[in-house]
């Protein structure tokens, strides 16, 4: 009887996760708790870091099989949405529905600031190659400089899926630190006189232009760079929902419920990809360092190009709005406003900075499209899916 009890007890103990715990699991649970702490108590991008942290926690509790790709773990099923290019474009749909392109349309030359800030992406690409990453991995790491979480996840899942967890965590962590990272660089690169420059009030834009812009830009950009279609197409569709005025329900759903649901799924699946085997590597440290470099150079690139525009326009452009060329909508624009207001309390740069801020979203999507055109290969999954559909449907040849 006693031996039976002992056997049963040891069997029960053997079934618990405690027995299967490894030092890697302990470390990853600590990382998950750190992310939860930053999200809840420090308010660093809580909408993303909280589900990422919890996803990481679930994925690293041994024997739960939440992130298992063999046993059909729940987080792994969510991850199919990342792997099959579904979730990041849906986030872009919501971002498009939330964003007013008016400031960009009123001052289209600010698109160049969005392009200039992409220099952070390319300097990081070179830095990553110097640190031993291959070109595909370096591209996925470099896009962190675009300060655009969904684009980073989208590109990492295509070019370097094994680095998805560290890239996503670096992208979102630094995005939340934009108010701390950008101001010193902005102050260092500009003079007090430049920071005091007041910009002319933006001209109003006709509703027809706001409606036609998403359609025209989708046609143009997709024809130039077919790789941008999933991200840019969804961004512009969301914006068309907003501006057309005839799809109130779709607009409302895109900017609220849909983006919230997709955020939960995306963040949980990213957290689920942060297993000890994939995260506890020297590469993770390198990615975190490179991510910071990407943000700093992108900010500097935007501000320096803002200074060039300031010179060419005879002092009509405040260089501070250049820093908003990194995406991070609308936080980067708010930082431009804040640093400008430090010099002159009545200087309102927010709406002017929204132009380059939106341009940064388009710029980082275009940068991702360029990388996909250069390094992306035809996705075998899509072909398999197509074959399955064609087998099931005799009408499809």
């Amino acid at each position, binding site marked *: 009887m006693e031996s039976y009890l002992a056997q049963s007890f040891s069997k029960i103990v053997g079934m618990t996760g405690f027995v299967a715990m490894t030092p890697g699991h302990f470390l990853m649970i600590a990382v998950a708790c750190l992310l939860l702490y930053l999200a809840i108590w420090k308010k660093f991008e809580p909408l993303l870091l909280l589900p990422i942290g919890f996803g990481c926690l679930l994925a690293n509790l041994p024997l739960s099989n939440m992130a298992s790709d063999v046993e059909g773990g729940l987080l792994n099923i969510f991850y199919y949405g990342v792997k099959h290019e579904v979730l990041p474009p849906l986030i872009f749909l919501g971002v498009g529905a939330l964003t007013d392109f008016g400031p*960009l*349309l009123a001052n*289209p*030359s600010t*698109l*160049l600031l*969005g*392009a200039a800030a*992409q*220099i952070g*992406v*390319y*300097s990081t*690409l*070179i830095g*990553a*190659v*110097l640190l031993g990453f*291959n*070109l595909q991995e*370096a*591209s996925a790491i470099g896009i962190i400089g675009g300060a655009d979480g969904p684009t980073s996840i989208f590109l990492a899942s295509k070019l370097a899926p094994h680095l998805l967890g560290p890239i996503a965590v670096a992208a979102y962590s630094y995005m939340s630190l934009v108010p701390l990272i950008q101001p010193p660089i902005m102050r260092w690169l500009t003079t007090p006189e430049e920071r005091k420059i007041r910009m002319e009030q933006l*001209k*109003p*834009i*006709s509703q*027809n*232009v706001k409606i*036609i*812009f998403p359609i*025209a*830009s989708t046609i*143009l*950009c997709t024809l*130039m*760079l077919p790789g941008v279609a999933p991200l840019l197409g969804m961004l512009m569709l969301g914006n068309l929902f907003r501006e057309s005025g005839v799809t109130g329900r779709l607009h409302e759903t895109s900017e609220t419920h849909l983006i919230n649901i997709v955020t939960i799924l995306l963040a949980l699946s990213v957290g689920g990809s942060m297993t000890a085997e994939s995260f506890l590597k020297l590469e993770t440290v390198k990615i975190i360092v490179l991510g910071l470099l990407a943000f700093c150079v992108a900010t500097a690139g935007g501000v320096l190009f803002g200074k060039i525009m300031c010179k060419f326009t005879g002092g009509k452009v405040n260089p501070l709005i250049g820093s908003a060329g990194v995406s991070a909508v609308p936080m980067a624009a708010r930082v431009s406003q804040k640093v400008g207001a430090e010099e002159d309390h009545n200087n309102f740069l927010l709406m002017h900075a929204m132009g380059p801020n939106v*341009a940064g979203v*388009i*710029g980082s999507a*275009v*940068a991702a499209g*360029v*990388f996909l055109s*250069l390094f992306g290969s035809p996705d075998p999954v899509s072909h398999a899916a197509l074959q399955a559909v064609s087998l099931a449907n005799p009408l499809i040849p």
Partner: protein
Amino acid sequence: MSPIESSVFVSCISLVVIFTTLSTLIFVIKALVKWMPYVPPPAKPASSSDNAETSEHIAVIHSALAHYLKKAPNEIQITNIRSL
């Protein structure tokens, strides 16, 4: 070509593509704005009695709102009011 050279080459090419794409978008936007300029909506003619009535309404709403928010009237500002 070494990996470093490749990365520099890729960076230069990509920056050129990005600037070209976004510069083309700038021309598209400028053309759209030129073809379809903003036309302000026709202003609603308002009589002097209407104005006086509106000012009175604003004053009443202002003081009521200030009282509700437990603030002095000069601490809040009503910027817009429209009658339906």
